[in-house]
């Protein structure tokens, strides 16, 4: 076990190097530099000012030098300083956005799981019934809707016309003057739309997967045996089939851990949520290399750990895979 872990962890390093190098290349190939964005079309900016700015950011050095410098800092645990005018440490910026994104994604995932598993089970045990078909359609419709369109419609209906829910953001303006309960309720109200819409569009994948996994299990011989033994359908489904059907779902869960740190740029833009998605996108547009590299690196690390965790969970949960 330990040697397996050691081997996997050792494999992380070349992967991370590869990923960071590819991202660096992509950024470097981009037309324009962060300095341009500060000085373009500003009649008052002289060529000397531009040169000074470029030197300040180390952009006048060849690419491999810049990459090398960045690597050197990373190894020491320093993610660097943002190129944007606020010159804040990259770590600070990520630390602000990451908890928000994580929180939202965990909520989404919980909601989706809570809905997808029962839907999948029901669909599988009543395959081809009207209910099965109806939920299939429902789930797919949710997936097929362009998310920003649905979000706006929901905001218009529930937020503007009916006034039931706030339109955007995570807290109200007078949050600070609310009681503890009031604050909790305020947060919940702000989360209903973004989490709800994300769940609606994300339900399809997991519920279909649950359904097919359940179907596969229900075809197995031992299920026939259980039925033949006279066990109620309920017992068959919930006590015997479910446990086995959940195995692949568990691994899917493991694989979605890395996705937890990625925010949806679209949802965050529409709902004015300051998460990782927007941070990444605006940094890309502003050619803020340190932030982009920092996010890519952290994302990659979390993904690799997530995959490792998924593999471990799979082995732990599926007895067939354990080495004797």
């Amino acid at each position: 076990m330990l040697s397996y872990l050691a081997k996997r962890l050792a494999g992380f390093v070349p992967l991370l190097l590869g990923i960071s190098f590819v991202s660096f290349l992509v950024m470097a190939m981009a037309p324009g530099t962060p300095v341009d964005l500060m000085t373009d079309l500003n009649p008052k900016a002289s060529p000397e000012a531009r040169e000074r700015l470029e030197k300040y950011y180390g952009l006048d050095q060849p690419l491999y030098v810049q990459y090398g410098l960045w690597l050197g800092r990373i190894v020491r645990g320093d993610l660097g300083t943002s190129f944007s005018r606020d010159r804040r440490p990259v770590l600070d910026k990520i630390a602000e956005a990451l908890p928000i994104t994580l929180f939202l994604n965990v909520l989404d995932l919980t909601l989706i799981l809570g809905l997808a598993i029962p839907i999948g089970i029901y669909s599988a045990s009543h395959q081809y019934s009207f209910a099965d078909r109806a939920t299939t359609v429902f789930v797919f419709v949710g997936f097929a809707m362009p998310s920003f369109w649905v979000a706006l419609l929901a905001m218009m209906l529930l937020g503007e016309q009916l006034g039931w829910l706030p339109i955007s953001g995570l807290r109200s303006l007078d949050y600070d003057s609310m009681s503890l309960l009031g604050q909790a309720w305020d947060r919940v109200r702000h989360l209903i739309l973004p989490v709800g819409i994300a769940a609606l569009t994300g339900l399809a994948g997991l519920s279909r997967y649950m359904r097919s996994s359940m179907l596969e299990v229900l075809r197995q011989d031992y299920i026939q045996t259980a039925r033949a033994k006279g066990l109620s359908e309920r017992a068959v489904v919930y006590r015997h089939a479910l446990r086995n059907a959940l195995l692949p779902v568990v691994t899917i869960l493991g694989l979605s851990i890395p996705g937890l740190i990625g925010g949806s740029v679209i949802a965050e833009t529409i709902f004015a949520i300051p998460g990782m998605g927007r941070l990444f996108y605006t940094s890309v547009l502003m050619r803020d290399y340190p932030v982009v590299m920092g996010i890519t690196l952290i994302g990659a690390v979390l993904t690799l750990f997530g995959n490792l965790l998924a593999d471990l969970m799979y082995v732990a949960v599926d007895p067939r895979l354990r080495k004797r």
Partner: protein
Amino acid sequence: MRSGSGLAAVALALATCAAASSLVLLNGCGDAGRGRQAEPAQRAASESSPKAHEAEATPAYGDAIVFGTIGDGSTLIPMLASDSSSHEYAGYLFDGLLEYDKTLSHLEPRLAQSWEVSPDGLKITFHLRRDVHWTDGQPFTARDVQFAFDTIRDPKTMTAYAEDYKQVQSFELLGDHDFSVTYEKPFAPALASWNSLMVLPRHLLEGKDINETDFSQHPVGLGSHVFESWERNTRFTLRANPDYYRGRAHVEQVVYRVIPDESTQFLELKSGGLDMMGLTPLQFRRQTSSAAFDRDFRKYRYVSNSYTYMGYNLDNPLFQDVRVRRAFTYAINKQEIVDVVLFGLGQATEGPYRPGTAWLNKNLKPYGFDPAKARALLAEAGWRDSDGDGILDKDGKPFSFKILTNQGNDQRLKTATVIQKRLRDIGIDVAVRVVEWSAFINDFIDKRRFDVIVLGWSLSLDPDQYDIWHSSKTGYKQFNFVGFKNAEVDELLEKGRRTFDEAERRRIYDRLQEILVDEQPYTFLYVPDSLPIVASRFHGIEEAPAGISWNFPQWYVPKASQKYSITP
């Protein structure tokens, strides 16, 4: 039952979706899509006249105003900021020495209570107010101005705005509240430049690295408001400065909410989450005219500070013949563009000066919309349709090129599309291409790899246009990227900078405009209107050429209508 049920399920689901979305949208916002063209612009004007809300209560202090912004600011030190959000935030915290008055015709005192320009135009002496304090209690002195001046000229300061101040030869302190600056040559735009130099507190920043100091996130200023809190990418708040030298601002709290999407901003405005925003022409005309809107908001309209143009790459042989450029201007119906793209909320323009200001040459003769004349001019220049394919050609080559504009600007894209059609009507084959901003600047503008661009300029209030039209400014990353070279214009631009005599300058710039109209290095298109909308509980708003925000500290909400309970 089985086969039908599946299909039925699909059909039912789809029908429900279609119906639901249509209902939501039809319901939304009173006067949906009924093509109401009669816009009560007159109504907006009369409503906002002081008399209409004079009946209201006396000015009171308190309440808050909530603005929306698409992007968050990055630094609160004005000379280091390059994005508009940062400048907007910092504008509440700092003042300049002088400021254009509400009619935009002359400069009035701010931190400087008076100034003199020497007869030879080389020296300006400023006398500062003696009653101003930084919000930490320290007095404001001429040394603070000197500090800001030295800092902005320091090569280590990462600012893009040093040019104007580099023209100064020497800075002389004449006392705690007086100083003079001497220029190498008379520099007329100088006075205006002292408007933009936002002074900094020397006692807090001396000896620190201006580029890295924490002051940019926690500043101390002397303006109408004091920095309160800044939650990144979410909210930026300010409180009124009780000791502001021009009188305490009535609106106690200013809040900026970062809302990156315009549709979301509009929804927030409608539901009371925002108090003010700039409307698009479409929103102004068609989405803000219901009874509820009239009750809860007031709309304003004034000439904005920018113009949109179509620029020709004068190094491209296609556009070197002035008859071709004039023909294009004849072929384009500028009023049509204003009507379609701006819903009439703007005006066609013939030159780079703002309508309503003294600098605009009122005797310019517009080309007008005349496609026949356009065709005639092109024929004169040798362009005919010799192969009958509808496209003009010369020496076997068809007249075809690309119009480039930047991505993210819907108005420019629509403008380019309209122009494309009008040019096609006279036999020119035009393609429209949209490019991401940074790529646009770096790959196309800077390298001058374009045929024609549709772009805009912001107008400064000083009439100097040196950077855009002088033949020396055609280098890499400079602003005469169309490559305009005219000896008389060069001379005019130089003379215009060197004299302070207003009458003389007016003559110079009038002549400049005549030449520009004649030569058409750009086809000047239009000046759009600014269309702010403000929640109706705010009183004291006075419309002027400078807009409506020029007297923001005087805006107030009567006690009875205050929405947010912020104790002053």
